[in-house]
């Protein structure tokens, strides 16, 4: 089946503009995650959604960042009033839920959206 897809693959925007990044998870995956990778850095957790539970927003760097997941599938990450420090690759991942305890699970990543704020 299809993997995680993200659009656009590249986005160049002017400082102060709003941007929307889209993620289509793997069908049947109830968990969806957003991460970002700034230049020379590791992947930084932003937010995750699990089924109908309230999302874990603990990684969002500021209130300019928000995300929603409609119908338990597609997710949109919105960055308002973009700043140059928002430039990064934004990665989406999805997974099946862990069945509990120490069960194994993996997150499957999309190719990312490279955001450049000029």
């Amino acid at each position: 089946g299809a993997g995680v897809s993200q659009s656009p693959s590249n986005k160049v925007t002017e400082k102060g503009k709003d941007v929307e990044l889209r993620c289509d998870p793997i069908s049947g995956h109830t968990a969806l995650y957003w991460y970002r990778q700034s230049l020379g850095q590791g992947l930084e957790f932003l937010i995750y959604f699990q089924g109908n539970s309230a999302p874990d927003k603990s990684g969002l760097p500021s209130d300019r960042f928000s995300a929603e997941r409609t119908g338990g599938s597609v997710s949109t990450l919105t960055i308002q009033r973009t700043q140059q420090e928002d430039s990064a690759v934004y990665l989406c991942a999805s997974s099946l839920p862990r069945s509990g305890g120490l069960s194994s699970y993996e997150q499957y990543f999309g190719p990312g959206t490279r955001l450049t704020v000029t």
Partner: protein
Amino acid sequence: DQQVKQNSPSLSVQEGRISILNCDYTNSMFDYFLWYKKYPAEGPTFLISISSIKDKNEDGRFTVFLNKSAKHLSLHIVPSQPGDSAVYFCAASYGGTASKLTFGTGTRLQVTL
């Protein structure tokens, strides 16, 4: 605070030899560890994982070792192949049915001919 650390930003290994990538963590609540491989302009690809109840997991050429007392894990690739050249990320998680991953900063592996 960097809870997962990969102190070697790069590693060069000759084809056919063993590659050893290291990772240290500070949070004792982590109960599951993963290694991801990343090629340029692609998303990370899952490679191998290990839960905290084990100390070794093997999959083909890839073996992950976990030393809980030292809060250290390592990925061994043997024999190394040119196609293994990529950035390798160590990641950790704990608890719940869906858990965020905390990543290290990555180690760039180059396998030379």
